[in-house]
């Protein structure tokens, strides 16, 4: 079983999934991410799945759960790089990945995270006034 490396980039965490994960590896990643969000005070998580040519309901669930847990811990999640045939298959499978924002690539994903985090802090200021 391999552990997927998690990189810290400023206030965000970046994960690039390059291997065909078995269920245990996926669950470990989910645990590691939630721990790191707390430990590093991360405001956002970027998950790069551009190397995955299969995303089944288990992985889909893992992504959705990760995003939900991250939100509870006050961090946003963006999934990037989904391959077209994977997207088509997920739609056919009936998985909506609700609550998971997506972007085309890491660059766009970072921009999106910046916007989401910035908007949030803006609203926080509004509330204070």
């Amino acid at each position, binding site marked *: 079983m391999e552990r997927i490396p998690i990189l810290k980039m400023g206030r965000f965490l970046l994960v690039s999934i390059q291997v065909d994960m078995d269920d245990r590896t996926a669950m470990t990643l989910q645990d590691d991410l939630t721990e790191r969000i707390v430990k590093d005070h991360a405001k956002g998580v970027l998950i790069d799945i551009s190397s995955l040519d299969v995303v089944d309901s288990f992985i889909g669930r893992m992504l959705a759960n990760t995003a939900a847990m991250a939100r509870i811990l006050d961090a946003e999640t963006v999934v*990037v790089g*989904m*391959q*077209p*045939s994977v*997207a*088509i298959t*997920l*739609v*056919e499978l009936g998985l*909506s*990945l609700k609550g998971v924002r*997506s*972007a*085309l*690539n890491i660059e*766009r*994903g970072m921009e999106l995270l910046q916007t989401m985090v910035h908007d949030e802090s803006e609203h926080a200021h509004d509330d204070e006034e």
Partner: protein
Amino acid sequence: MPEETRTSELLRRHEQEVLSNWIRLQQQNLSLRNNLVKASDLEEQCRAFLRALLTTMEAGGGDVAGAAWSQAREILSDISRNRARQGFTPTETAMFVFSLKEPAFDVLRAEIRGDELAAAVWELTQVLDQLGLYTAETYQKGREEIINRQQQELMELSTPVVQLWRGVLALPLIGTLDSARTQVVMESLLQAIVDTGSSIAIIDITGVPVVDTLVAQHLLKTVAAARLMGADCIISGIRPQIAQTIVHLGVEINDVPTKATIADAFAVALSRIGLTVTRRAGGAEKATPPKPAATE
């Protein structure tokens, strides 16, 4: 089967005669297509088939669909696939088998009489009719294969995805959409989104006369898939009739932005990516007249 053995025995004795008459007859009938089938090929095909026919009849024959006739069937299916590919009609192709009747009956008529002749002719007719029909059937399957392949190629050629601006794609759909074509088109769009790094895709259906449930569902699936990838879609060009159909079919199109024209959709797309169109301070650019051609 004494009748069949007798028949095949007679034909075997006159095999060369039957063969050359049969070939000659076909060449007369195929006179317009002589250049498509080489004389040597035709001779080989006829020889092989006649041999297989006689051998199987001598061994007892039986139902033409059975294992005993498999060699004959294989020869015929090869011939009919080739003829299909070359553009022969099904009749011309089946005539390969049917035209064998005349020279075969000539031989039988010369050797036997009365009831015996009638029985032999009937026997042979049954076999050749079934084999002729088999030929027509495999011809049909051969044509279907070709048509399917051509359809696939046509679909792949006619799926234009246009880049309207950096990051904005348009897919103007034209003509009737069937399930297969819609899928091919949608896959091209999703691939183009990745290739161009576009975040907005405008799907224009102005040129689509009819949208049924299946097509509407494919459209929505494509929009959902694009969203999963990180791109948004706008559907434009929905005519009143299509809007009615969509509502009647109960298709859930609520969370997909729709616009009447590509132009409207393009305006929305530009503002989504943070751009606006403004008027130039200097006014419209004057068109420069073409430079006169250099004289020799």
